[in-house]
């Protein structure tokens, strides 16, 4: 028994030592890149360039390879052993005998470099064994980076601005955005009153912050009562999580004193994403004691 205790103590010490060491080194937690599309409202060229820089350093992961430490890829936004910043050296790439892409303007070269990197491989940086004919750089419009065309334009604008050359990419227009996002959000209501009307929450619930026109329906619980969840909802869910689930899967947790299968189960299909967000946010605020 004593031996066993000694062995255990020894093993615990070893395991604890490894854990301690691992906790003593720099700690970094990485959030997944956001998938939200950028809002183009009120975009100026300056903010477009700033957006480009954010994407360049974040979602685009460009400095992972393009940095001064690793010598894994040529520098892009600063001058160095690879020449002036890339937007300034682009014309010389197009004039290079090895160039076999389809770009004719520097801006097009930059875009091509990002989406089909092998069109021109900077000398010495190709995949090993391919004689600089295949680039190790991924297509940034696909794979794990997956930038949208607007995001790619923003990065180009940033590279051009960093090189001090004229910014030739056009500012994205509202038309581009609405064309992309309209179908998803067509006819979405913008306030809780309209929402409670449109989806008839008012028929069953007293909805906080909404004009009930003197009615006090009791088919479903009074949603003012959600206040009791502000500190922790059933199933230990965060409040917003719980509300979202209560709306899209009403039978998941049936409020006390009410019948299951009363609340329509198909809101998930009928409501727009933005509407669901609106309802959740509005109810959560009310529960937390806001307006």
């Amino acid at each position, binding site marked *: 028994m004593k031996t066993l205790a000694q062995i255990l103590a020894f093993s615990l010490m070893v395991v604890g030592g490894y854990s301690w060491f*691992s906790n003593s080194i720099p*700690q970094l937690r990485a959030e997944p890149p956001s998938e939200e599309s950028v809002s183009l409202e009120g975009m100026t060229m300056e903010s477009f360039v700033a957006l480009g820089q954010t994407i360049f350093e974040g979602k685009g992961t460009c400095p992972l390879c393009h940095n001064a430490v690793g010598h894994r890829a040529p520098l892009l936004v600063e001058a160095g052993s690879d020449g002036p910043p890339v937007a300034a050296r682009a014309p010389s790439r197009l004039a290079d005998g090895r160039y076999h892409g389809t770009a004719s303007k520097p801006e097009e070269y930059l875009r091509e470099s990002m989406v089909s990197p092998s069109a021109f491989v900077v000398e010495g940086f190709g995949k090993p064994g391919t004689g600089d004919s295949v680039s190790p750089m991924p297509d940034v419009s696909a794979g794990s980076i997956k930038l949208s065309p607007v995001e790619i334009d923003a990065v180009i604008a940033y590279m051009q601005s960093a090189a001090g050359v004229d910014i030739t990419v056009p500012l994205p227009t509202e038309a581009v955005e609405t064309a992309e996002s309209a179908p998803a959000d067509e006819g979405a209501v913008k306030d809780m009153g309209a929402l409670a009307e449109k989806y008839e929450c008012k028929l069953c619930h007293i909805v906080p912050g909404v004009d009930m026109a003197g009615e006090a329906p009791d088919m479903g619980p009074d949603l003012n009562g959600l206040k009791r969840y502000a500190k922790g909802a059933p199933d230990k869910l965060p409040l917003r999580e719980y509300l979202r689930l209560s709306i899209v899967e009403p039978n998941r947790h049936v409020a006390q004193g009410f019948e299951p299968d009363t609340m329509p189960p198909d809101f998930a299909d009928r409501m727009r994403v933005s509407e669901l967000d609106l309802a959740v946010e509005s109810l959560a605020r009310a529960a937390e004691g806001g307006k």
Partner: protein
Amino acid sequence: MKPRNTLFTLARRVLAVSLVALIFAVNGGVAFAAEEAAVAPAGETAIAPVGQPAPVLTEESYPLLGGGSSRVKVWIVAQLHLFFAAFVLGVPIFVLVIEGIGMATGDKRYDAMAKEFIKISMVAFSFTATLGGILLFLLAMLYPDFTVYSLKIFRPILIAYALLFFGESLCLYIYYYGWEAMSSGFGKWVHLTVGLLLNAAGMTLMVLSNSWATFMMAPSGVTPDGAFLGDVWAVMHGPLWNPINLHRFIANIAYGGSIVGAYAAYKFLTAKAPEEKAHYDWMGYTANFIAVVGLLPLPFAGYWLTKELYAYSQQMGITLMGGIFAWLFIIQALLIGAIFLGANYYLWLGLVRVPGGEAYRKAIGWMATVLLVCFLVWFTPHTIIMTSSEIKALGGAHHPVLGALGVMSAKNTAVNIMILTTFLAFLLYQRAGKIPKVGWARGGNAALAALFAAGAANIVTLGIYGYYIPANIRIGLSVPQVFTTLFVIAAASLINGVMYRGASETGPTRWGDMPARSQYALFLLAVSFTWLMGLMGYVRSGIRQHWHVYTVFRDYSPDAFTPTLGYAANVVSVTVLIFMAMVIFIFWLDNFSRKKAAHK
């Protein structure tokens, strides 16, 4: 014949059998493909997909089960399953070899030891199966869309997997329970054949399940949005499959050895009778030997894996070695350093039990110094990793930067020297207590010394040269370094073997005559190996970052973030502790059943 004399023979046979099994492992999947289908990496194909694209999910698509993070639940259970699986795969490999040696030498002790080893893995086998069941259940509960997606692709493999598992259980039961019944004459051959079948089934199981993990890391056989193209072989035969097959295969043997070593150490420490002590000392020595034989080629397999990883995606490679996971390799270095030092320490102490071993004890100080220096070189790579704020400043939170493989030159050098030093420790142990009869013994010793010196010099020179050439050429330098190491090992074994043939001995090995602290080196080995496996299992999955299947199936769950290394290490520690508790339970069961048997 003395066990010590046969150990090098054993090493040769372990290697030979490993090679055969390996060839089998690498080709194992061929049975599933009528023709050699071309590897179709995601996106480079015109074939129309037969499957649906990977689904786009929301946080609500991930059901919750009780409190706590779903990822951690699956993580712990998967890792426990892997620990046991690795153990029950590794043990039968060397049990078969040891049984064969027992048969060839007629030494009954080998046979008894082989049976004792396999007995330990019996209970472990049912734990493996149970944990696998729990894992599948958890995946289906917590990650239903992902589970359905992968099952659709891997359906035919799963059927094979289930059948193989059944076959493996059958072989294992016959192998163990039929041990006595088939213990002589033709029966023994049948028994060996069952053992071979057991290993064949086990290896095939392993390579099949490896393909699930490698598909998630580097998908092939699907379109860029994850739709299955219809050819399972192309899915399995992804760019990382064979490197992982090899690395795991070797690691499993080493791992199995280390756990059995801990078992022997425990028995040694609790044994009262001298014969018992001698038996478990010998068992511990053999197990440690197996662990080290497995350990020596592991770094090479690791580097091959790294190389293929860079070739598959430079982005992934840099994220691993120079990005957010860079510090993880410092932890890895610490663990591997502990393993190498522990194994050597055990060997050095072992010189006590060999009469005449004292002569070599002077060398220990030097060897320890060399190991320590190598360890430090490896531990502190030349492009020292930055603090987290520097990382953030350079590359944003998810993809910080480092001069990645720039450090590899130094690291490779250190590893190769460490391997040579460990091999030297074995060589000395092998020579201890023996006096060569051949006339050229002096010349032979000089040749051996020159061989080691030249080998070390060559490795170090190549390492230094590495700093003067570009990174993408540098990686190629590891090849001549590895060949130098392998050459020295082969040539030295040969010279030494011939030189000591028919050597006279100064006295018998005093098995059982070992200080207690030597046994703690065996525990250190087992715990560190387990922890290392947990850590590397984490990085294998962590490298996918916010993807279920890298680049094709995004992780939309609340757990899609990459946790800090400290957090990951704590999960690994908890998992290792659970594993240890389960293993102690198995050992206890074993003792318990013996006591019962003794009573009767």
